[in-house]
């Protein structure tokens, strides 16, 4: 049963958490109004809709806010389900648990490493350490990909799924990291399955226009964020 009421997404073009929601909205062929937020100066609508976390993405459905990207993705999947729309989560309860586990893993391990590499490291050493942590997490995900997919192109059962969009959201910033460190973070030599997955995800229809791939533009944007106070990353920073 389709949901009634219009969709509005408050986001930021580089945010991995926003990108994953946009990919899902595309997968479900859902029209929505996109509002680009200035994270250094958040709108009243954002602060009013997500007073607890004050973060993007916020999905407004008929004016009612849904917050936290993984919660939003599951909400969209539940509301717009059925034979005519692809499912993001599998239907089998055990497979859903496996997907949720790996999605949690991505945000627990890749997330903080990404932040460290681009925004929190003050020295080359700290950044290199962040890169190693990211690569270690990606190597674990490589193993998961081999185990879970059994030759299929995505983590999802029938195409792009939950783990794909959660990890895929980071690919925008990975473009910038690749340029910064002079090599691919998802290294074909160390993580060949994921490297192939990366190409497939980036070129997928649902990712078009929402996964940034202009490294210079991303790095220039990063400069503006480096000047801003850390609380724009509120709740993402683990001490």
């Amino acid at each position: 049963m389709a949901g009634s009421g219009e969709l509005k997404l408050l986001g930021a073009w580089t945010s991995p958490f926003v990108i994953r929601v946009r990919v899902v909205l595309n997968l479900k062929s859902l029209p929505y109004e996109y509002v680009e937020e200035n994270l250094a100066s958040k709108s009243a609508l954002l602060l009013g809709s997500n007073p607890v976390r004050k973060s993007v993405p916020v999905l407004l459905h008929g004016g009612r806010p849904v917050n936290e990207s993984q919660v939003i993705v599951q909400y969209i999947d539940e509301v717009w389900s059925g034979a005519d729309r692809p499912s993001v989560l599998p239907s089998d309860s055990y497979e859903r648990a496996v997907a949720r586990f790996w999605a949690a893993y991505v945000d627990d391990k890749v997330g903080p490493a990404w932040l460290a590499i681009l925004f929190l490291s003050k020295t080359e050493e700290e950044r290199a350490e962040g890169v190693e942590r990211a690569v270690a997490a990606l190597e674990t995900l490589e193993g998961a990909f081999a185990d879970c997919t059994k030759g299929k192109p995505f983590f999802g059962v029938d195409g792009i799924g939950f783990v794909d969009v959660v990890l895929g959201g980071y690919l925008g910033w990975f473009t910038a990291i690749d340029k910064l460190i002079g090599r691919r973070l998802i290294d074909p030599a160390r993580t060949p399955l994921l490297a192939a997955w990366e190409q497939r995800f980036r070129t997928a229809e649902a990712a078009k226009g929402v996964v940034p791939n202009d490294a210079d533009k991303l790095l220039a944007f990063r400069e503006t964020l480096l000047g801003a106070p850390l609380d724009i990353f509120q709740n993402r920073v683990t001490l």
Partner: protein
Amino acid sequence: MATVEEEKAGMVLLDFWVSPFGQRCRIALAEKGLQYEYREEDLVNSKSELLLRSNPVHKKIPVLLHHGRPVCESLVILDYLDEAFPDTPQLLPAPAYARARARFWADYVDKKVYECGSRLWKLKGELQAQARAEMVEILGTLEAELGEKDWFGGDSFGLVDVALAPFTAWFYSYEKYGEFSVDKVCPTLAAWARRCGERDSVAKHLTPPEKVYAFIDVLKKKYGVE
């Protein structure tokens, strides 16, 4: 029809006595009236082969084994129990929007309470004062969300209640380290905590607060904190 042993063999919970994350699972299983075998893991000395095999990524409890297949991460386990046993009392409500709200708050509890609490007993001085202020804010935020309701789940004891209930055993410790009173700072939440404690599922599985406090001493030694 399966014997109790056979039913239990279908589900095994690898856990650690004082873990609030493990207790979430025990509470949920009790609320659902599900039989299972409880296995205590010796996290201090050596983790079992079964644990290491079942959760090779994190090597952590809780792990729920259902017919031998592992489910890891406490909130993932709670979701799984709802979905695999649809004829048991559900932790999540039916409407999608209410489910999204519940998931948001369960995630909030997950990200905030234990981590802030850990800083409260690990750190000193300025950083401890900061942790104290944050804990008071977190509890206040939860109290605001609870509002006039009996449970976070509304009329029924739900996902967020299960996610937070084990931490009520840690309130005593937070109070001692933070030098504040939960009753004074968030009386409605304190009342909710007492209501939780009156539920069989919670009363049977929570660690007595003084034992949690004593356990923190063990953790402090482990982390080399004075």
